């Protein structure tokens, strides 16, 4: 970037001065902030809702059928009632109770799957980058191969063979397909960092491999690791929701995807029961937007060239 490119206006100058005065912490990023806020909101809904709302309403037949949310009318001219503020579904379940339990479940699958996937990725990536040779070849080829296989398709085969699974098993299964990109990313970073001055300096001064890995390299990888983690949370949730919408996954535990599946199958679209599929759709959308904002924010943290643009 050359200086004659942009003639700074007075406003930009003031902004520049303000920027220089304060401690410039790249982590104080508005996108990061809003994204985290959206996700925390959903977590809070799940946590606080558990104490404030009657969760027995999540069982089939515990409420009247197909009541609309408060302030709306359904096709049978029934108004929404305060007892079920977000309406009820076609099986007689309260939508509010359904999302209080379902949304954290969906998020849980995503987080657990990516935590496991990341751990595998960090281990394999560092191993490949450091050990090199045959080990590196095997890990690299395996990651290259597995990254082309869409997780959804293998898991469809798996789950239709096994039937009902628990949330944890589903997360474990998905984890088997989200380790590849962190592995590739970390391997590439480790390979390039190995050549950098400070790592070679550490090596010359006799630091242990462990020290170099975790004290010298890992801190520099943090933004990448976070970004990669968020990306795999997104992939995991998309895969989980995909399985649920195909009628697979946990059959008796409420999740957002399962709710959408039941709504579509019951013809909620044609019957104008928009709250049945709409509320879980909206929550999932909020989740994904939150994750994207965090990812964009992290991009700006790790790549200062992007920060200048916004």
């Amino acid at each position, binding site marked *: 970037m050359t200086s004659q490119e942009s003639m700074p206006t007075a406003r930009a100058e003031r902004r520049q001065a303000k920027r220089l005065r304060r401690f410039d912490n790249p982590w104080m990023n508005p996108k990061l902030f809003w994204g985290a806020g959206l996700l925390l909101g959903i977590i809070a809904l799940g946590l606080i809702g558990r104490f404030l709302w009657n969760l027995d309403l999540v069982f089939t037949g515990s409420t009247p059928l197909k009541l609309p949310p408060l302030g709306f009318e359904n096709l049978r001219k029934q108004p929404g009632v305060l007892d079920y503020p977000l309406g009820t579904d076609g099986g007689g379940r309260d939508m509010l109770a359904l999302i209080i339990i379902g949304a954290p479940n969906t998020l849980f699958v995503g987080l657990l799957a990516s935590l496991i996937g990341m751990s595998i990725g960090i281990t394999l990536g560092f191993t490949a980058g450091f050990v090199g040779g045959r080990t590196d070849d095997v890990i690299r080829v395996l990651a290259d191969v597995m990254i082309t296989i869409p997780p*959804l398709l293998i898991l*469809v085969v798996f789950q*239709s063979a096994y039937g009902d699974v628990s949330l944890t098993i589903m997360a474990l299964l998905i984890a088997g397909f989200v380790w590849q990109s962190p592995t590739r990313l970390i391997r590439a970073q480790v390979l390039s960092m190995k050549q950098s001055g400070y790592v070679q300096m550490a090596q010359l001064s006799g630091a242990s491999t462990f020290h170099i890995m975790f004290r010298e390299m890992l801190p520099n990888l943090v933004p990448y690791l976070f970004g990669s983690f968020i990306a795999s949370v997104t992939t995991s949730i998309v895969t989980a929701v*995909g399985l649920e*919408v195909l009628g697979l996954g946990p059959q008796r535990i409420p999740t957002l995807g399962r709710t959408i599946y039941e709504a579509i199958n019951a013809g909620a679209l044609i019957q104008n029961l928009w709250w049945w599929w709409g509320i879980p759709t909206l929550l999932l959308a909020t989740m994904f937007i939150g994750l994207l904002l965090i990812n964009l924010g992290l991009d700006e943290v790790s790549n200062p060239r992007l920060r200048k*643009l916004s």
Partner: protein
Amino acid sequence: MGRIPRSYLINRVVTLLLTIWIAATLIWIIPRLSPVDPADIMLGRMAAGAGSVANADAILAQLRASFGLDDPLWLQYLKYLKNVLIFDFGLSTATFPTAVSSLIAKALPWTLGLMILSLIITFVIGNLLGALMVWERSPKLAKVAIPAAMVFTSIPPILSGLLLMWIFAVKLRWFPLTGAYGLTVEPGWDWAFVQSVLHHGFLPALSIVIVTFGFWALGMRGLMITVQGEDYVKLAEAKGLRPRYILYRYMIRNAILPQITAFALKIGLLIAGQVLVERIFAYNGMGKLLYDAILDQDFPVIQGVSFVIIFMTAMSVFLVDLLYPFIDPRIQHEAT
């Protein structure tokens, strides 16, 4: 092979073969690790659904044969691999004597058509918008509106599909709710059929387009930032070329090529997303076939569809990797 070094080619071919082999093996092993006999389960479900099953023995025999349950395991595996290579997945259990491969052959053109169409549209729109986000002369509105619109691009197409269905098919009734063509038109190459296909395909395509263009736009933005500072762009400006000409012929043209490799990484997710869109729109493609097969516990079809989709994904990645050096001469594959 022209500019491609032999070692690179071998590397890519090995990766392709390994991918197909691992996918086929996983699909083969998974049902065998299951504690229950899939053939029995399927027959049991059919019996439960229909009261009694005609030709139960024949179906059971076919199932056992298609899983090869009577042979030793290694022979079963080798037979299976041979069959998979010629796309023979046995017979469907839901529509019994139909071969799985003929069901897939019927569904595949719809999936490919929808995919290629929506891919081209997103690629063009996404890259153009991404470039406009960086370009100095693009209207102020573009720099505010495009990033705002991109927030929605993190949403999987199934969610956008539901919203679009509700707005345009249920509320406004501009487009049909489900299916790939109208019930009243005969499939054929006449205008009524083509019109019906376009009419039915619009919403599924749109639901994919509006949530995937942002991926290309984001990538393009990053690449444009790099290209912007290049000397040849400055030279073009100094020569007094029209800014629009510089944008298209100097900046986008150089930035767009690496985007093609991004495609290779994304295609798996794109296909998986489209399968789900086809399922909610009951579009006559692989997604609907897969969903119906899951409902019917039609295991040969589930295996067949999964394998074919994984095969397509691996093939496209392979082709992109192979063709890329020809498209972008700047790439020099080093013999490693």
